[in-house]
């Protein structure tokens, strides 16, 4: 088999799978409460976009995820750099971060709802904490592993402290953060959607919990599909960005 046409075979297999699923559902062999047909899922998707009610939810989820991502990356870098520069800060931060890293951080979602209410703040907080811990460890361990030879090279070219930061430390930190960008994006959306799922009045996570409470599995699967597509699209953008900025690798 020609490996170049793997995608064509995958597509064909997927089409066969969908057709069989549709046919079996049509024949009445599937309980629509558990397993709606692809046609029903498609109809649910079309209804979401056709009625235009999806936009406010997409906006809410995107807003929370991107805000959490941005704040989390900034805080993670600042804390990571501070921790590497000031031993006292490292002593305080490391146990807290290790603890936060050890538990699945989404368990904080109900607590954040109590603290920050059911509005967007609790979703941003969850996204933020997921991303910030990841980036903190990326930067904190990364700075310790900066290539000693590069540091000595800049020193022997009469580079001072500032030159070291600018030409060695900053690019190294940027490389590690970019290398983890996809994971961070995934975390940010997980935080937003889980936060909405727990308590919210808007967002994809809210729609999911609505679909669950009304036993609307066609809507549920339509949303799962939509979330997958959204995250994959953002992965693709993050991947392009990473590839361009890390083209020296």
């Amino acid at each position, binding site marked *: 088999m020609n490996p170049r046409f793997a995608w064509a075979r995958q597509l064909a297999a997927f089409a066969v799978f969908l057709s069989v699923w549709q046919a079996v559902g049509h024949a009445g062999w599937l309980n629509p409460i558990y397993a709606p047909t692809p046609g029903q899922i498609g109809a649910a998707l079309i209804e979401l976009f056709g009625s235009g009610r999806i936009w406010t939810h997409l906006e809410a989820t995107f807003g929370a995820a991107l805000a959490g991502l941005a704040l989390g990356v900034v805080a993670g870098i600042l804390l990571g750099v501070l921790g590497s520069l000031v031993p006292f800060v490292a002593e305080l931060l490391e146990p807290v971060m290790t603890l936060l890293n050890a538990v699945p951080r989404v368990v904080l979602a109900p607590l954040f709802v109590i603290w920050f209410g059911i509005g967007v703040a609790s979703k941003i907080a969850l996204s933020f904490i997921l991303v910030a811990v990841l980036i903190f460890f990326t930067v904190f361990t990364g700075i310790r592993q900066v290539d000693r030879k590069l540091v000595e090279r*800049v020193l022997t070219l009469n580079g001072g402290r500032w030159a070291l930061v600018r030409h060695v430390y900053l690019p190294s930190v940027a490389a590690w953060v970019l290398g983890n960008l996809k994971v961070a994006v995934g975390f940010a959306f997980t935080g937003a959607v889980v936060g909405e799922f727990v308590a919210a009045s808007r967002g994809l996570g809210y729609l999911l919990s609505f679909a669950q409470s009304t036993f609307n599995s066609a809507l549920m699967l339509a949303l799962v599909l939509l979330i997958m597509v959204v995250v994959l699209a953002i992965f693709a953008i993050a991947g392009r960005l990473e590839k361009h900025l890390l083209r*020296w*690798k």
Partner: protein
Amino acid sequence: MSYGGEPVLEGASIVVGEGQFVSLVGPSGSGKSSLLRAVIGLQQPLEGTVEREVAPSEVAILFQDDALLPWKTARDNVALGLTLKGVRRGRALEQADVWLERLGLGSFGHRFPRHLSGGQSKRVALAQVLAREPKLLLMDEPFASLDAIVRTRVIQDVASLVEREHISVLLVTHDLEEAISLSDHIYLLSRGPRAHVTRDYPMPLPRPRDPVRARTHPAFAALYEKIWNDLSHEVDRV
């Protein structure tokens, strides 16, 4: 010179005259690298002094590992050596191009280090330090990682460049042929700890000199034999 325990080097007195090419050979671990690191100021000697008649910014060092910044192109790496010396960026880039050209890398300036071969990367590192117009060039086994042909070519280029620019050189090497064919003077370091200079040999081969032709000079074999015996004696000593 010491790292806390017994002194690594003791009484290692080496003189590099202006425009002279001096090599330092000796057993592994005798402190050759430590000595170079002390001269460039990466390490403080416990006692004793490093006397330089040149300013710190006029001393350059090359290691076995080129340590080019991976996120900068060859051209930017060379220019960095100049901007860190206070040259403004536009001028630094011009000079970088001149030196890359001189080292036969005119069309490789835009490449990142990952996309350079061992020999090309070595030449970029050379351009980086030579563009700074150093008075003293320190080299710590810089050619050890290159394969034989590339190595010979790079050595020829280094020899002619330092001769032309009148740069003083202190080379640490494991390779006696390399040391004899390049040097005006060779120092032999004893086995450490407390390593010291046990012998030193003036090299009678005439200048200007091609390091490949030098190997066929009538005096070469006898010099090699003599220094080799002394070096083996140091390595085998218990």
